């Protein structure tokens, strides 16, 4: 049980650390952010190994554990497994998906947004382009090229 608890705890830490970079409503510390970003590349693999170890250990021990002990073991197993799942998704992109595949239109008959809606307008060399704020407010950025220059309109 102690082994399973440790595995679950490690999985929780490795999951929560990368989640620190998506906390929406707080002011984060620079040092913790650094730590979190450092752990991020190893978290998914580490969590997978921890989840596998936790599953194996639970499989060996669950007959021996009874009543509350078994419930506690199962709960810890769930923690370890959720860690493995959570470290594999980009939560921010789940909410604000990338605008891959967006296309351009002439502004003359452009009706996707109202005339009174705001756009971000950019002029580079000979090209001008409007990025509707409502578009950017959802995707938050779009990898684009204007007059041959790679630019990143973002919001």
């Amino acid at each position: 049980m102690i082994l399973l608890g440790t595995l679950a705890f490690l999985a929780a830490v490795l999951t929560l650390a990368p989640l620190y970079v998506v906390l929406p409503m707080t002011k984060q510390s620079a040092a913790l952010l650094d730590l979190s970003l450092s752990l991020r590349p190893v978290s998914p693999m580490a969590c997978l190994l921890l989840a596998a170890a936790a599953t194996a250990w639970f499989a060996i021990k669950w007959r021996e554990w009874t009543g509350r002990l078994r419930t506690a073991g199962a709960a810890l197993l769930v923690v370890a497994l959720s860690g493995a799942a959570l470290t594999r998704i980009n939560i921010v992109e789940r909410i604000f998906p990338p605008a891959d595949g967006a296309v351009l239109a002439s502004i003359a008959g452009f009706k996707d947004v109202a005339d009174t809606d705001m756009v971000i307008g950019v002029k580079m060399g000979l090209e001008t382009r409007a990025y509707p704020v409502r578009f950017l407010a959802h995707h938050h950025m779009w990898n684009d090229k204007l007059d041959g220059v790679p630019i990143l309109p973002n919001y």
Partner: protein
Amino acid sequence: MDGRALRFRLGGINNMNFLMYDEETGSWWQQISGECLFGPLKGKKLTRIPSDEVTLATWRAEHPESTAVRFLEGIRYPESDWEKRISKLPAAGGSKSRTDLPPRELVAGIEFNGASVGFPMEGLRASGPVNHAVGGEPVLVVAGNDGNSVRSFFRRFGGNVLIFYKAPDTAGFALIDEATGSRWDFSGRAIAGPLAGQQLERIQNTKDYWFDWQRYHPQTTVYRVGR
């Protein structure tokens, strides 16, 4: 960055502002500043390009040749009034936050010569053109007729410093400069009078929430109408 094109993805949120990473090096960047916080490119900064935040109608009238990015199908985009609704959300300040303005008040921020000034949108809408200085440089900050667009210009022109007023004789947008009486449109071009055909030079302004502006410009002052 250094001759190499980077592709960015959203990856996180830091201090209520997005973090993004590039697919090429895996470095992490703060959206508002363009600064790299972590990874191989740490310490680098993306170059800011000039941009305009105006209504579709204004942009179309000034740039009929422009293209625009279309909505993707199957996505529910925020409604036109989403900015009004989001302004009611709480904002995380942190202990060092300034309380000059409510956190979610919109300002037009200008940075020049190492100085920064936030011009509350509310004031710009109410007061008409603002003749002020940032970092010792005389500037004009003016909201468009729609109340959401805002543009800023250098006021030094041909050895003089111009002072602008709202033209009293029209409900549309027109400014008049005190020295010559010329009329100016929202793009900073003189459309009538002795300076007709002349163009004021733009200075970049950033429309931002106060809590965000003050965080990245801790020395900023706030322009107050009538003070």
